[in-house]
C-alpha cells in the first residue's frame, strides 16, 4: 500500500470510529430538509377566520361560501356583534375577521356599492398581508363573475408562475440547504480534522515523516469529498421524492457543479486549518464566518436584490450565492452550462485561490 492510500485509510477509520458525528452528518440533511420543507414556510393553508355577517342574505352567503371553499381559509366561528371581534382574536387562532355590513345585497344593487371590512391579525404582519390579499382577490373575483356583462372595460391579469407553479417554498430551500450542508461538512469537518492532529501532537509525527504536505492535505480532504457528495445526492433525492422538487436540467452537470462547490469548500477548510491551531477556533471560524453568510448572504432565505448595496457587494464575494444561482438554474429552469458558465468560472476561481493560499500557508515545520 503506498503512503497516500495508507493515509486515506487512516482518515476513513477516524471517521467511521466516530459514529456519532457520522450519524449527525448523514441524519442532518434529512432532518434539515424536512424542517425547512414543512415548518419554515410562508404558504397559507386553512387559516382560521371568523365572519360577522350583519346581512345574512344571498350575496354574503355566496361570498362566504367562496371564501371557505378556496382552501386558504377555514371558518372557525360566526360572530354576532362587533364586541366579539377583539375577543375572537385574543382568544384563539383567528387570523382574519370578515365583516359584512347590513343590507349588503340591497345596497349593492341600489347604491352600486357595499362594504366589507377585513380585519387582520397583524401581530404576524406577513401572514396578515397575504390573507387580506387573498380575501380581496376572492371578493373581486366574485364581483367580476356577478357583473360579467355590466362592466364595459376589464383588464384580466392571468398570472403564471414559471418554474415553480405552486410557489412552493421548498423549491427555494433545497438549493440553499445544499449549499449550507456541503459548506458545513466540507469546510467545518476538514478544518477540524486537521487542527485535531495539531492539537493532539500527531501533526508533529506526520511532519517528521516522509509524507509530503500535499499528501497530508489531500489525504485529509479525500474522505470528505465522498461524504459531502453522498450528502448532496441524499438532499436531491429527498427533495425530489418527498417534496417533488424536480431536476429539469442535466444530472451530470448538477453533480459536477456539486463537486466543484465541495472542492471549493474543502479548500476553504484547509485554508482555515492552516491559519489556526485549535479545533475550537477552527470551529468558530467555520460556523460564524461561513455558516451565517451562507444562510443570510446568499439568497437562500432573503433575496439578494432587496438588500442594501453594501450587503449586496458582500454577497458577491460569498461563493454560496453563485452556487445557489447555479443549482436553481439547473434544477428548476433546466438550463445547461451555457447559461451558468460565468458562475461556474467564479467558483473555479474561488477554489484555485483558496488552494493556492493554503499551499502557501501550509507549514512544513511546527513554527
Amino acid at each position, binding site marked *: 500500500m*503506498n503512503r497516500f492510500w495508507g493515509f486515506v485509510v*487512516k482518515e476513513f*477509520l477516524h471517521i467511521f470510529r466516530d459514529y456519532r458525528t457520522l450519524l449527525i452528518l448523514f441524519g442532518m440533511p434529512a432532518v434539515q430538509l424536512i424542517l425547512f420543507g414543512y415548518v419554515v414556510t410562508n404558504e397559507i393553508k386553512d387559516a382560521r377566520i371568523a365572519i360577522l355577517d350583519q346581512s345574512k342574505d344571498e350575496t354574503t352567503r355566496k361570498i362566504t361560501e367562496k371564501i371557505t371553499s378556496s382552501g386558504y381559509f377555514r371558518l372557525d366561528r360566526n360572530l354576532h356583534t362587533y364586541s366579539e371581534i377583539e375577543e375572537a382574536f385574543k382568544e384563539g387562532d383567528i387570523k382574519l375577521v370578515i365583516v359584512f355590513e347590513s343590507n349588503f345585497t340591497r345596497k349593492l344593487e341600489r347604491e352600486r356599492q357595499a362594504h366589507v371590512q377585513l380585519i387582520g391579525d397583524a401581530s404576524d404582519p406577513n401572514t396578515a398581508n397575504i390573507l387580506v390579499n387573498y380575501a380581496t382577490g376572492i371578493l373581486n373575483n366574485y364581483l367580476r363573475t356577478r357583473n360579467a356583462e355590466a362592466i364595459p372595460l376589464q383588464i384580466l391579469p392571468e398570472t403564471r408562475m414559471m418554474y415553480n407553479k405552486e410557489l412552493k417554498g421548498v423549491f427555494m430551500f433545497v438549493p440553499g440547504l445544499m449549499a449550507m450542508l456541503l459548506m458545513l461538512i466540507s469546510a467545518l469537518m476538514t478544518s477540524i480534522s486537521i487542527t485535531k492532529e495539531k492539537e*493532539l501532537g*500527531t501533526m508533529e*509525527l506526520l511532519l*517528521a515523516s516522509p509524507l509530503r504536505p500535499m499528501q497530508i492535505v489531500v489525504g485529509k480532504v479525500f474522505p470528505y469529498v465522498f461524504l459531502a457528495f453522498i450528502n448532496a445526492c441524499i438532499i436531491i433525492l429527498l427533495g425530489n421524492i418527498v417534496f417533488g422538487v424536480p431536476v429539469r436540467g442535466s444530472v451530470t452537470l448538477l453533480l459536477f457543479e456539486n463537486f466543484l462547490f465541495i472542492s471549493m469548500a474543502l479548500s476553504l477548510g484547509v485554508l482555515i486549518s492552516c491559519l489556526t491551531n485549535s479545533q475550537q477556533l477552527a470551529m468558530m471560524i467555520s460556523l460564524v464566518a461561513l455558516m451565517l453568510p451562507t444562510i443570510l448572504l446568499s439568497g437562500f432565505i432573503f433575496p439578494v436584490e432587496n438588500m442594501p448595496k453594501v450587503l449586496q457587494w458582500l454577497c458577491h464575494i460569498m461563493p454560496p450565492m453563485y452556487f445557489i444561482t447555479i443549482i436553481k438554474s439547473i434544477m428548476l429552469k433546466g438550463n445547461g452550462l451555457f447559461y451558468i458558465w460565468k458562475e461556474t468560472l467564479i467558483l473555479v476561481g474561488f477554489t484555485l485561490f483558496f488552494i493556492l493560499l493554503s499551499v502557501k500557508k501550509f507549514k*512544513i515545520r511546527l513554527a
Partner: protein
Amino acid sequence: MAISVDVRNLSKNYGEVEALKDLTFSVSKGELFGFIGPDGAGKTTLFRILTTLLLADSGTASVEDLDVVKAYKQIRRIIGYMPGRFSLYQDLSVEENLRFFATIFGTTIEENYDLVKEIYSQIEPFKTRKAGKLSGGMKQKLALSCALIHKPVVLFLDEPTTGVDAVSRQEFWEMLQRLKSQGITIIVSTPYMDEATLCDRVALIQNGRIMQISRPAEVVSTFPLGLFSVSSADVYRLLHDLQKLPKEHSVFAFGQVVHLSYREDELTRDDVIDFLKEKGHEEVTVEEIKPNIEDCFMELMQKE
C-alpha cells in the same frame, strides 16, 4: 569514530526567551547519548530542531551528514522520533497505529517485524485495543514501536519515560540498550538523573546551555567536593539549620536525607555533628558518601 549528529553554535529564541544558547556537541554513530536537565531546559526545542520541525535562529546542525534545514526531506526518511507527549491516534487500535506508521514510511509491519518484535510482542496481545485505552507503560512501548518500525538510522526520544512507572522505565532502558547493540544511534532526553548512568555519554543541560558533556562515570569522578549524607529525626528543620552552617557549602534534600557538599579543607564530619547537636537535633547521622549524577548536576547548577 564516525559522527552521526553534529551541532555547531546552535541558538534559538522564542521572543525574549532564549531557549538554546550557543550549543555545540556531536554524537557518534551507534552511541546512546542522553540529555539530562529539568523541565524548560530546552531539550524539546533541541529535539525539534534536530528532527527538522523547528528552525534555529543561528548555528548549524546535521544528522548523518544531512543539513537539518536544506536536507530536511532526506532526514525525515531516516529518523525515528518519539515526541514528549503521547502522540498516537487514540481512536485507532494498537495494530492500526503501527500499520499506519509503517505505511507512511513506505514499509510494512511484516518487513521489519524483527526490529520491533521484542517490544511489540509485549503489547501484541492487546493489538485490537484502542491506543487511548492503554496504560502509560504500554502507550510508551507502542510509541517506541511506531518510531522504530521503519528501521531508522537515528532515533530521537524526547522524555520517553516521563509519567511511566519504575518497572516500565527499567524495561524501556533495557530495550534501548538492545537497540543500541543493533547499531542505531539513540538520542534521548530525560528529567530523571538516575537514567543518566545508562547512557554512553550525557550532556547536562540547564537554561538552554550545555554545562558538561562526559561519560556518566566521569561526571561523578570529576565532582570537586566532599559529600555528606546527613539525617536526623526532624528532616525539615535539618535542612533549614544546615543552611546556616558558617563554612562555604551547599545543601539539598534528597528523599529522607540531606546531601551536604563541602570543601574538604574547610569542613569535617565532626564539625557537622557538633553543629547539629548544638542546634538540638536528635538521632543525628553523618556519612561520607560518593556523589551520584544528581549531586553533580546540583553542584553545576549552583555554579551557574
